[in-house]
């Protein structure tokens, strides 16, 4: 992936030198081998901080709303799934098209850094990564490793719909083949089949662990409200008590507030410190949106109306 990194730096440098943007948001090497951190680069000299590889799970489109009122334009590095967020933000009028330069990188999938970190020698530093189709090779100064995708990749990447960014001004790297997955909602269907008691017990076990740290909300690129219902004190829509009842309320509300806008980037699920399977809630909504309204994944194409944001006379009317 060295050539992608090289091109990424060149393009970023050019954008900054030509003053087309005042800031480039991208991935930089983190303190550990298998982690990256968002970097915010405002000078051409800074572009050497940019990197790319199978450890770039963060959805950087999240930061675009922070700069929507800033002077100057912002460039952002996006994967396929992140690009869906950019489309959603544009369609929601959260950002303006002429202020954003989208640097799209076709993405072969992202590894779960914890799993990789558990196998690589502690303290090793990263030399190079490469995509070999079924696996990634990771070269370090303490030896070379290979991680097969099936076992080490993030779950969301195993059923990725858009490896190629769906919106991009500058595309770096080769386009990848797009696959369709019949089993995209396998886990949701399995849970749907269970009895009411079993479903209740399953989610009670999940929700009761929630710390209400709100990491899931904070990381979400489509959570764009200035004042969040969960923060508001007057009226206090959801109590701040951390117990099963209030946590259940929180989770249903969170999932439903992003229904029709959630782009299935899976970030909420990834960042949860308690490993609560938030994506299984979002995916239930995606599945129903598809079944009821024939709605594709939000953000997967520009200008698709939000299924829950508009009315058409042909809509199913289960409540009439």
């Amino acid at each position, binding site marked *: 992936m060295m050539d992608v990194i090289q091109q990424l730096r060149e393009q970023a440098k050019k954008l900054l030198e030509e003053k087309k943007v005042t800031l480039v948001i991208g991935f930089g090497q983190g303190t550990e081998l298998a982690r990256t951190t968002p970097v915010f680069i405002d000078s051409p000299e800074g572009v050497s901080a940019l990197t790319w590889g199978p450890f770039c799970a963060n959805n950087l489109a999240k930061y675009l709303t922070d700069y929507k009122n800033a002077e100057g334009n912002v460039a952002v590095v996006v994967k396929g799934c992140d690009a869906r967020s950019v489309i959603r933000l544009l369609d929601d009028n959260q950002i303006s098209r002429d202020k954003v330069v989208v640097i799209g990188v076709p993405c072969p999938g992202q590894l779960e850094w914890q799993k990789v970190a558990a196998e690589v020698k502690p303290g090793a530093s990263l030399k190079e990564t490469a995509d070999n189709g079924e696996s990634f090779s990771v070269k370090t100064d303490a030896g070379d490793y290979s991680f097969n995708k099936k076992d080490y990749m993030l779950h969301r990447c195993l059923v990725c719909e858009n490896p190629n960014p769906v919106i991009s001004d500058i595309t770096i790297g080769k386009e990848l083949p797009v696959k369709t997955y019949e089993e995209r909602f396998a886990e*949701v269907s399995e*849970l*749907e089949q269970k009895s*009411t*008691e*079993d*479903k*209740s*017990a*399953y*989610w*009670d076990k999940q929700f009761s662990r929630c710390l209400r740290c709100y990491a899931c909300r904070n990381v979400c690129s489509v959570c764009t409200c200035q004042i969040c219902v969960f923060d508001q004190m007057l009226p206090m829509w959801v109590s701040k008590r951390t*117990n*099963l*009842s209030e946590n*259940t*309320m929180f*989770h*249903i509300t969170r*999932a*439903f507030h992003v*229904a029709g806008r959630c782009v299935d980037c899976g970030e909420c699920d990834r960042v949860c410190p308690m490993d609560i399977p938030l994506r299984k*809630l979002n995916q*239930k*909504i995606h599945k*129903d*949106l598809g079944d*009821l309204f024939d709605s594709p994944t939000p953000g997967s194409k520009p200008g698709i109306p939000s299924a*829950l944001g508009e009315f058409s006379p042909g809509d199913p*009317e*289960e*409540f*009439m």
Partner: protein
Amino acid sequence: MLKRLLEYVGFEPGRFQARWISGSEGAKFTTTIKDMTEKIKSLGPNKKMRDDIV
């Protein structure tokens, strides 16, 4: 959508109901409320999201 989500997290089917009734549909209102009350009574007390669960 919400109804499906609630059932997915373990609420009984029928615990949450929504109906669209216009101001002029008095009779529909009566029968709907009767049906709803019956359905809810047959489900028994709600066990989820109660203030006494901590």
